[in-house]
């Protein structure tokens, strides 16, 4: 029951983030570049709630984004699924109690997501290759994501632990005792 409520709250949070991304962050930009809140959101779900929840919610949310506004169905779904899946592996190898490691994880996830999406669009759409323009946007977007992560870090820690207790209680017991 607790898990169902948590998933529902995560879905609600997704819509709040979607609203922020499509309204507030369309004008609150750094050099006309928006952050990518979905990458942060899915990575944190993967980190704190585990790979299953991360993967499933990543795919569902990604597909939703593709259907609503994307040019090709599937690419965001696959990439966000990968980010959600990677969350648990990152959790096993790095400490999420440190601000620096969380920031590094966000940097890597943003780069993986955007490079993957860009390569996919280069293959499937008649898009001209613009490496320099792409790198410029990617750099600003990653920087913006890092700034947001620093700002919301205390919230991440608090909500993250609640999420972890809800989804990973058994894991923690087997790991430490």
């Amino acid at each position, binding site marked *: 029951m607790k898990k169902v409520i948590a998933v529902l709250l995560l879905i609600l949070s997704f819509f709040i983030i*979607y609203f922020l*991304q*499509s309204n507030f*962050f*369309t004008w*609150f*930009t*750094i*050099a*006309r*570049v*928006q952050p*990518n809140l979905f990458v942060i959101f899915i990575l944190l779900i993967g980190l704190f709630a585990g790979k299953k929840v991360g993967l499933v919610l990543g795919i569902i949310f990604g597909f939703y*984004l593709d259907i*609503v*506004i*994307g*040019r090709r169905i599937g690419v965001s779904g696959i990439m966000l699924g990968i980010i959600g899946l990677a969350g648990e592996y990152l959790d096993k190898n790095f400490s999420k109690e440190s601000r620096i490691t969380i920031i590094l994880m966000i940097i890597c996830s943003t780069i993986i997501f*955007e490079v993957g*999406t*860009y390569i996919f*669009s280069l293959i499937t*759409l*008649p*898009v*001209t290759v*613009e490496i320099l*323009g*792409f790198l*410029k*946007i990617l750099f600003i*977007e990653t920087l913006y994501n890092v*700034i947001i992560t*620093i*700002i919301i*870090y*205390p919230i991440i820690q608090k909500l993250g632990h609640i999420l972890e207790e809800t989804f990973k209680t058994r894991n923690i017991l087997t790991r430490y005792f």
Partner: protein
Amino acid sequence: MNRNKKNGIIGIIITIIILIILVACTNSNVNQLSFIENIFNVFVMPVQNGFTYLKNKISGNDTFFADMDTLKEENAQLKQINSELEQSLRELEVIKAENETLKENLNLKQKYSDYETVPADVINRDISNYSSTIVINVGTDDNVQEGMTVIADSGLVGHIISVTSDTAKVQTLVDTASAVTSTISTTEDTIVVQGTLDDKTSLKATFIPTDAVVLQGDSVETSGIGGIYPKGIHIGTIREVINTSNITDRYALVDTAVDFTKLNTVLVITNSETKK
């Protein structure tokens, strides 16, 4: 522990301030930052004046002070003339803008009178930095189909790439996957305009014929070739022609007629087949 918490909060506040400054600086015009320039000038100018004085002294320029009064007088006269000229320039610009709007309206009325259009509102914008699509609130229920052309009062917006019963997804001109065959209205030369990642307010015009004379300010319209867009819809004006060492590689930057950041209402052309 308490101290750490305090430091953390201060860190967050500083980051928020940095973010706001970054957003404000990167989105504002350089002209609006003139007050910062003034502040810097207050500190820099006295030093610079001192250095200039020393330099003139050393190079034996004794006329520095003698010419001062004449220069001041001349400067005041020039300033007055300048302000008068600026005033008349502003008036002329207002008249020019008014004239252009009237011309545009007249042209639009004549140009698009044969098309049947469905008005629509923009209800969603792209959330990605790498593409530019919009969602409008008309669909198959309003006879809107895939591939139809979407225009705004100032020019071409794009075409419909997918449609549901009450919404339609539009790939705009500035999307990186968009390429439109168009003509330069003055010379009738055919070019291809494409969206770029760099700038979401302009397009890159390529495949410019080697013998074509492309000038800044030339109007660009759809050519009707390619089967998606009807002929003669205004796309934008040429801002700059970039010449490369090889003339076949030269390209131009086209300012779009439509401001995609402020686009709220559009028209979908439902009978463009008749105009092809």
